[in-house]
């Protein structure tokens, strides 16, 4: 079974599902980063990963080399991916500014220290 799976992987063109799998892995890794890292910047990197995982799906759905008659986004896919990238950059800038502020105020970047909102 594994052999035929690998064979398929090698001989058949990848599909949306494969891209989605990679995206899922990146997404989960990112989410886990956000969940486990105590370093604010680590959390930020997690966010970046999550966004990329999502982006990968958009690209996959937008690409016609992976299309097998399933639901397609067409050009919207790449456009949305573009917007995601740009906004992610913006988000990174703001998040970094916040992190910097946090560091200035608490002189620490341990997100566990940032729990004034605790109920």
């Amino acid at each position, binding site marked *: 079974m594994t052999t035929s799976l690998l064979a398929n992987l090698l001989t058949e063109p990848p599909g949306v599902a494969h891209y989605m799998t990679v995206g899922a892995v990146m997404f989960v890794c990112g*989410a886990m980063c956000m969940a486990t890292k105590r370093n604010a910047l680590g959390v930020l990197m997690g966010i970046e990963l999550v966004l990329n995982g999502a982006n990968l799906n958009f690209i996959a759905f937008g690409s016609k080399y992976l299309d097998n008659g399933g639901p397609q986004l067409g050009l919207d896919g790449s456009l949305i991916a573009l917007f995601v990238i740009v906004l992610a950059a913006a988000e990174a800038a703001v998040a970094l500014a916040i992190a910097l502020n946090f560091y200035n105020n608490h002189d620490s970047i341990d997100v566990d220290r940032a729990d004034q909102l605790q*109920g």
Partner: protein
Amino acid sequence: MDLTPATALPKLLAAAWLLPLASFVVILFVGKRLGPHGKWAGYVAVGAIVSAFLLSCVAMFVVWLPNHELPVTHHGEHHEEGDEHDDAPADDDHQHGTAAILQDSPLTARAGHDSPFQLAAFQEGEAHADEHAAEAGHAANPPPTYYFGDWYSLGQFGNLKLTIGYYIDALTVTMFCMVTLIASCVHIYALGYMHDELHDPYHDHEVIVHGHHLSRPGRFHRFFQYLSLFCFSMLGIVIAGNVAMVFVFWELVGICSYFLIGFYFERHSASTAANKAFIVNRVGDFGMLIGMMALWASLGTFAFGDKQDAKGQTVLTESGAIAEPGIFSQLRTAENGYRLVPPASMIAEERRHQPALEANEETLSHTHGHWLLLVAGVGIFCGCVGKSAQFPLHVWLPDAMEGPTPVSALVHSATMVAAGVYLVGRFYPAFCPEALLVIAIIGCITLSLAATIAITATDIKRVLAYSTVSQLGYMMLALGLGGWIAGLFHLITHAFFKSLLFMCSGSVIHAVHTNDMTEMGGLRKKMPITAYTMLIGCLAIIGAGVPLTPIGFSGYFSKDSIIEQAWSHAQTNGGVYWVFLAMAVIGASMTAFYMFRLWFMTFTGAPRDHHKYDHAHESPRVMTGPLVLLAIFAIAVAWPAFRLTGLLEQAQPVGTAAGGSGMLIEDLVVPAEHLSHAPDIKLRAGLAAFSSAFIGVFGAAVVYLWGYLNPKEIKQTFKPIYTLLWNKWYFDQLYNVLFIRPALFIGRQIAAFDRGVIDWFLHSCAWTVRLFSMVFDVVFDRTLVDGTVNTAANWTWDFGLLLRRFQTGSLRQYVLFIVMGTWFMCLAYFAAAFVLMS
């Protein structure tokens, strides 16, 4: 612009009417910032009123006079009358009206015995036999031309229609000219008189606050603001097209007088005087309301005139009847020959009570309708009593002296008190002879009463005030005796010379800073212009003139015509009615006495208070200018050449000139007005008036000019009378005992009742409720409601505590929650999808 009266007059007069309002609004909002201490506010108001005067003049001389030919007046020589009747207008319904008058005028009905009309005819001799028709001809004056319409309808409730409308006839235009002219003079005069108010702060020397003179910011602009509103209101009354509108502006005038009389409201006397004027007027207005209700309930309309189309023609229905008849044409229909006959709507009640008599109208006694008319007339007259300070309600006017003198001038001459007389004149067609009798009685009492009081008064303005009251009494008397033209004639002439007199006194006060004549004297040399203009005023008011010739001051013509009217009335009715004549004549002499007493005491003789005398000075030109102007008018306004009476005759309500006979009091006859021009009456009346005036002047001169008699000794001799008069017949005290004390007493009783009974009841109710609510509180609120709410709150609290645990504030756990939440959601979604699939 087209100058056809129907279109031009409403526009012009509306503009003249609204200009003061505009200036009022302007001053109200930006008055304080107009120039230093609001100096320019005065100029705004003056500009407004003067332009209003110019507009009125345009209305009068450009629009009215060219379009309406003046009838030839009868106030000149009587023998013109013969060759006069042919130029009486000769249209059909007028002939019909004539016929009607002939067959059922009270005169012809009682022809044969002492009808002054026949008597006059006989004296003229048989040659004038055909004068019957002629006499009757202009005895039955034609329906006056008027322009009636609505500018704006405030609303219609059922058939109650409230509109801002106009009723414009010769009287309206004349009043407009008169009011705006005098108001203009007063405004200009006030510019000078009120200049103290420009000082900031203004020191009021009559008010002491903690041992110092009160000093307050000047109220120059406010004064002119009130003046403008005052003029606006008065003009509103004059132009009003229906009773409701009249009432509205009536009240406006009242409030304005309240403001102005209480202008120095820091002075206790001023504020009380203002209150007095206001309250006393309310009493009269109450009666007026009753009259209005009576009229409206029976006639169903407030409008004076009939509905007119754009060209000023009365709108008729197909059947030829008047489409929307006003009050007057309902009361005096052409079918009844313009006699005052209660219309069917007034008799309806009675008809319901006498169904048997349903069949024939003639057998109806109509007493019900007559009473209704009486109530309406007397009711309306009550309002006039209040405004014009007639006998029971005259007490407010003298106290109104507390206001600044220009205000007094305005109130006493042109605006407020004139409003009452004007309303009587306007409503004249609705007054049945009994109502007229009441008016006459009231007027008679008022004039004698006020004259007597005026004799003893020493306050210069007070004297003038009482003279105003008595002059108003004269007017009312004239109107009550059937002299419509005479009354309004006197109203206009009096307006001029009385405002002149007041301004002169104001000028004097301005100079010597006191009202007390006993501190004046010899001011003639100091202030000649004032002195001689005032002399002119006095001569005008006593009606000085060469008897039996059309030469004299304005008062001469008007007062003589009043006395003539009284004479003819007395002749017609005889008996007790001679009292009216006597009172009129005696009042005339008293008028002459106190007027010249005033003048002598003020301007002649040796100065009584040297300090004040030295301090005295002639007033500035802005004050003397109006005096001169008014003096000219006081002299000349009534000269026959100017045909003022003819103008008034144009407006004389149809049918009123023919007089009428009492309906409830059978033997009461109101003589036709032209009968007062009978030569013998003119002769006697003229002589009586002259001699009485002469006696008055002579007496005054004897006492105060030549000093043959010492006033003090006279006082000593007639001490009781003097004290009686000095205390104004104890009217204030009387009212105090009659009304105020009882009112206070009742009030106290009611208050006691209130506290003792009502409050007790309420308190007990409250206590009960409180008790109940306490029980309710414990039983229901605390347990049930609070229980529910608290349980809910507790649940929320607990839930919040539960949620609080999740709100860890730790970013990473939030992420975890999100992840797991997403996971569960998707799982649920897939599960649901799976279930639905299978």
